[in-house]
């Protein structure tokens, strides 16, 4: 099955709506080990993205994703702005000029996004960040597709891995981001960025399931 630009638009609209719904929950998570703004930051960014979507509705998927990336960079601020912004930019570059994507294209785009975040954030897995949710999700997706799973099945496995990665941040000691300032006290709290990353993964699955 193929993912169209319309699917991508639906994905973005749903993510924006879901973030608004869970804005306070994400901000609460950030209160515990950060500075109580993650939900507000992403909501500000995706609200602007939503407003910009009409202007790119007829564009290719690469252009749409790049617009999302620059919009996030220009409106979110904080750590998540440059990180998610870079993620969408790199994903967009990975699928430049494409109006339809196959499962492998999606996996490639997600891998590019992951690399973008790690490059921008100078971070690796196990530091209690969004990477700990995104990384396992990307790995699981690639593995499942390689094993011949159908896209929806593969995405389900990916979201499951992403969720496990998100939960795995709870016992971690943070070494990147604000949470690292808490030292030992960062242990026992779920990372807000890992949580927002998992939110996006679940929306992706929903959209593809409906496709």
């Amino acid at each position, binding site marked *: 099955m193929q993912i169209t630009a319309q699917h991508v638009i639906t994905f973005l609209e749903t993510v924006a709506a879901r973030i608004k719904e869970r804005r306070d929950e994400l901000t609460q998570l950030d209160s515990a080990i950060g500075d109580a703004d993650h939900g507000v930051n992403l909501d500000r960014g995706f609200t602007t993205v939503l407003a910009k979507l009409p202007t790119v509705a007829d564009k290719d998927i690469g252009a749409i994703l790049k617009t999302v990336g620059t919009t996030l960079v220009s409106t979110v601020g*904080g750590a998540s702005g440059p990180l998610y912004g870079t993620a969408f930019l790199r994903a967009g570059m990975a699928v430049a000029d494409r109006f339809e994507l196959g499962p492998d294209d999606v996996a490639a785009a997600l891998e590019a996004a992951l690399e973008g975040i790690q490059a921008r954030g100078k971070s690796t897995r196990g530091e209690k960040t969004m990477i700990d949710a995104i990384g396992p999700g990307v790995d699981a997706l690639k593995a499942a597709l390689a094993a011949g799973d159908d896209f929806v099945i593969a995405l389900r496995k990916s979201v499951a891995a992403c969720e496990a990665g998100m939960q795995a941040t709870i016992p971690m000691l943070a070494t990147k981001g604000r949470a690292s300032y808490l030292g030992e006290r960062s242990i026992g709290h779920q990372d807000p960025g890992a949580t927002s990353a998992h939110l996006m993964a679940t929306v992706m699955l929903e959209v593809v399931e409906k496709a």
Partner: protein
Amino acid sequence: MKKLINNPEDVVKESLQGVALAHADLVKVHYDPDFVVRTDAPVQGKVGIISGGGSGHEPMHGGFVGKGMLDAACPGAVFTSPVPDQMLAATKAVDGGKGVLHIVKNYTGDIMNFEIAAELAAAEGIEVAVVVTNDDVAVKDSLYTAGRRGVGVTVLLEKIVGAAAEGGADLAEVKRIAEKVNAQGRSMGMALTSCTVPHAGKPTFELPDDEMEIGIGIHGEPGRRRVKIASAAEVATMLADPILEDMHLQSGDNVLAFVNGMGGTPQIELYVMYNELAKILQGKGVNITRNLVGSYITSLEMAGCSFTLLKLDDELTSLWDAPVLTPALRWGA
């Protein structure tokens, strides 16, 4: 939530409007992207100095824009680093042909957003140098972590580096002095109460009536440890000791002692703390040759304070004494 605000979303913009109206003689405020800039910017032939960071730390940074200090400041949302568009626009607005220094506090978000802005500015042919402040001894430093936070030293650095630029130093020289200030300054902070981010609506952390946080930053984040409340003398020791351990000051050294309020602590308490700090340094034979007492780098309405010590030599002392004319710091003018 009890605050003198309208909509939480509008706090930063409305406060900037107030600043623009109150200090029209010193600064202009540009909106979308937001930045506060000297009325006479760009000053031709002068290195431009800009800084920025989340709002909620007032007077830092906007209150430090003016002759002898910052050329521009970029305020983000409350406790959220500003976006690259702001730093890019500010960099262009203050570029007088001799390059621009970015003063960045060491927080992942600030680092990355300034980094992107610097890349874009360079692409437009503006020479940008960067200094990152990381003076907070509450945070264990390491190559593998986000490292120490930039706190109180940032205020002193902006004043001193601003004077150097005003005095005609070139970009390399300005950067050298900036790095020297950061290297010679250390800070430690504590909180008696949490603070409430307007859009969050409730305190970032809960603190019982008989406890305080030691080793906090400036974003309402909890500190390194929570202890029972103690006397001013005991708190002063908790803040001064880790700084002194880290700085290895010698008897006879001269320092600038900066006692900073976190936003909700009244002056009468800050001077009590200054008195305690002075006693501690006197005991070590360290001379306070300059001082600053007041709420200059804050966390909204948080009650608490921080100590910053900066080792002084003749160069830094004369740059500190140089005239400054900003909304929040003013002398010799």
